């Protein structure tokens, strides 16, 4: 894309089209909206800085790969921190163990029972399963792009998705 203004506008449109889903993906993964917003912003920045000149068709898997890496990094950092400083933060650990009520009670009420059930069911999935659900079910990436975003094989994507859907189906049926 030779024209920088056209590339900028195109990137802006792409990010606007994925930002809400990206935020939910990050939020399901880290259970905190502020952290999720930071991760999404970092992913946007990296995509815009490093890949703005790449064809727009390549942006979705690249963006989700960056976001997924950021999420994995976030969990690694949190684990490392807990390992080294956990003995200092017993009170904080107790607070962290309490499920995050979300940023806005009014918003939670809006989301309704179905959303609450879905959210609870998603939390029971592994991180990889959550990622594959968001990428394949919601974002609509095909198997190859989802595999590129998750840095795994297409076969692994299919397996994760199949198991995740089975788990979600049985959990959601329990609630209905």
């Amino acid at each position, binding site marked *: 894309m030779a024209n*920088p203004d056209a590339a*900028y506008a195109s*990137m*802006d449109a792409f*990010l*606007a089209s994925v*930002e*809400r*889903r990206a*935020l*939910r993906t990050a939020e399901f993964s880290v259970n905190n*909206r502020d952290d999720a*917003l930071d991760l*999404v*912003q970092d992913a*946007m*920045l990296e*995509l*815009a*800085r490093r890949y*703005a000149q790449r064809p727009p068709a390549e942006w979705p898997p690249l963006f989700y790969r960056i976001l997924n890496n950021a999420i994995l990094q976030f969990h690694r950092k949190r684990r490392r921190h807990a390992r080294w400083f956990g003995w200092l933060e017993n009170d904080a650990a107790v607070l962290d163990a309490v499920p995050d009520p979300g*940023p*806005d009670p*009014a*918003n939670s009420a*809006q*989301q309704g029972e*179905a*959303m609450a059930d*879905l959210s609870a069911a998603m939390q029971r999935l592994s991180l990889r399963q959550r990622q594959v*659900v968001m990428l*394949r*079910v*919601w974002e*609509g990436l*095909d*198997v190859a792009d989802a595999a590129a975003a998750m840095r795994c094989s297409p076969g692994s994507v*299919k397996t994760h*998705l*199949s198991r995740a*859907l*089975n788990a*979600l*189906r049985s959990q*959601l049926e329990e609630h209905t």
Partner: protein
Amino acid sequence: MHAEHDPGLSPEQRRCAAELRSTLDQLPLDAVTQARLSAARRRALDASRPRQYLPIWTGAALAAALVAAVSLSLNPVGTDATPQPLDEDSLEWLALSTATPGMYEELELYEWLADDGDAG
């Protein structure tokens, strides 16, 4: 292709995927979070945009042009450097200005002699 159309999944899994997608699509996002998200997007895009070097280069070019103009006005290039012939007064002044003190003394002596001769 969304998972709900994936022929590799069972009909139940596809139906589950369709319901999931529908539920996720209906997730509301409060105005504050939407605004924060848009601001994050703008920050990311602005930070990634290459800086505008044009004004700096324009300023440097203007400064260079100014220096060149001042330099040319002080030391004009291309003007006619052929020496002009000096007039009589200038030649006399030049001769006097290049004379040594001894020559002045001799000149005064000759003038005194000439005056004295006239008087005598």
